[in-house]
């Protein structure tokens, strides 16, 4: 299987936004000393990865500082500084997943509309099932038209049972049933899909809170993990999404989806810096095996590829 880095690069090769190329453009042709324009172009290249204005400006300052002190001189050096600095702000090894002491480990997937929750739940089921775990899925999106059917089709494809209710039914009840059934059937994991919602919608956020509360009624230490999906093509709003979802629940990780596109997901760096949510997995396509555990060094290498 190709590495995360290779996967990631495939998308980037098709665009002209490659940071490496723009850096080569900036610094490769540079003969004299670096000027204000050099730094501006550098900032532009960094912002293009959706790192955000603040982090990009900070990186440029760091680079300028080192250049002025005579520590760096080439485009390769610049990349190294950027990589090093981002890597230092990402956790080196993300904390291990919380697992149930007894009974199934319950993971809840949350996020804004269309960010990739349902597909990620399916991919994760496939991933964990491949390592010999017995996985149960819960169709906790009872709102979206055919949201249940979508998960049921995935369940069949990955060979995992699905607990589902009726369209328009109570999502919390489905989650409750799934956890109970997971315990009874001796499952190792229960993965709960939820309906997409904007973090600005108080009522819908309260409903999600209820799902979580009801799960803990059936199993006091559950949900063990709550993961937020972040679409790699999202800009700075993802930071707000993470903040608001995080106010409601202890988010324990991110799933960075659609990294096979041209969006580089730089915003997860800002999310990680401010909120400390580690990226757990990355999504790299629409098929079940298009999922990989997050590797910080690969990600950073790819971010600046």
């Amino acid at each position, binding site marked *: 299987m190709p590495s995360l880095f290779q996967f990631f690069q495939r998308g980037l090769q098709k665009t002209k936004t490659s940071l490496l190329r723009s850096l080569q453009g900036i610094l490769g042709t540079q003969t004299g000393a670096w000027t204000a324009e050099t730094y501006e172009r550098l900032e532009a290249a960094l*912002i293009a990865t959706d790192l955000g204005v603040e982090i990009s400006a900070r990186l440029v300052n760091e680079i300028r500082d080192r250049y002025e002190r005579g520590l760096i001189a080439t485009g390769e050096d610049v990349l190294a500084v950027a990589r090093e600095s981002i890597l230092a702000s990402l956790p080196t090894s993300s904390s291990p997943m919380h697992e149930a002491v007894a009974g199934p480990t319950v993971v809840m997937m949350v996020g804004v509309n269309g960010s990739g929750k349902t597909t990620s739940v399916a991919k994760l089921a496939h991933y964990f099932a491949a390592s010999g775990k017995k996985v149960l899925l819960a169709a906790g999106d009872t709102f979206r038209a055919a949201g249940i059917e*979508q998960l049921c*089709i995935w369940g069949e494809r990955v060979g995992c049972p699905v607990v589902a209710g009726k369209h328009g039914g109570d999502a919390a009840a489905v989650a409750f049933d799934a956890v109970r059934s997971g315990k009874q059937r001796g499952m190792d994991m229960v993965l709960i899909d939820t309906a997409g919602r904007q973090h600005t919608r108080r009522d819908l956020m309260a409903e999600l809170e209820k799902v979580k509360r009801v799960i803990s009624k059936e199993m006091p230490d559950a949900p063990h993990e709550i993961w937020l999906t972040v679409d790699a093509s999202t800009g700075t709003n993802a930071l707000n999404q993470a903040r608001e979802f995080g106010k409601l629940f202890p988010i324990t990780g991110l799933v960075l989806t659609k990294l096979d596109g041209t969006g580089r997901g730089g915003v997860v760096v800002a999310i990680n810096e401010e909120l400390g949510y580690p990226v757990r997995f990355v999504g790299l396509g629409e098929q079940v095996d298009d999922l990989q555990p997050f590797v910080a060094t690969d990600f950073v290498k790819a971010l600046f590829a």
Partner: protein
Amino acid sequence: MFNKLTDRFQQAFRSLTGRGHLTESNISDALNEIRKALLEADVNYQVTKQFVADVREECLGEAVMKSVTPGQQAVKVVHDKLVALLGESAVPLELSGSPAVIMLCGLHGSGKTTTSAKLALYLRDKQKRKVMLAACDVNRPAAIDQLEFLGKELGVPVFLDRDLKDVPKLALLAVDAARKQGCDTLILDTAGRLQIDQDLVQELADIKRRVQPKEILLVGDAALGQEAVSVAEHFDQALGITGIILTKLDGDARGGAALSMRQVTGKPVKFVTVGERPIDLEVFHPDRMAQRILNMGDVVSLVEKA
């Protein structure tokens, strides 16, 4: 973050409006803040740069510098230029042909299927059209069920064929079906795809060649980041889009992507969507969007009163 942004803006505007005359350096300070605000709203870097340069030029002109209230004039320049870039006013759909075909396209999860249903309702109720929906997404699990469900809910006929995987052919059959059933408008829901996925983008080009849609609308999420330009450019180059629909404006994304997409394609934003219900579709208003991007609603109205 947004409060900080509002503060930044008001700071910038105060430094402009509190003065009897302006210097180049006052303007530069303010423009620097505006530049940051645009970038934080996810307006593309290049687009931002060009925008700030244009505003600078106009602010340094006589009309602003020599006016009685130069600061307020400068604020107005920023606002007006942004509105102009976003498109002066809403552009209606081109609905000639029998049936008039509208094709929706865009990245995964941007809101195409939901928007197809919203448009169907809008055209039926507001423009008295007879609308049919066509399920042309054969990739995503349960995509056909999703559209079928939405059609049933709204009482709009849905053309579908669960066995046919040839999408351009599906579209052609849908045109036939629409004609036979006396529908004057056909909306094609297509599968999500990456703008760089040549095979899948070619599929859309094939639909275009065979059914000649009058409208090809790019459906883009308001929260799109810096890639918005690449997305819009690629879809436009491959398909010649006729407009843009910006979705999920009920969230708090500032929607700078709208400006980027509009700017690189020159194609109008025609609608925005503001929720998950079929009625949550609105005609696009450039001035509202400008104020949202800049977070400067009240500032502008104050200036206009002055």
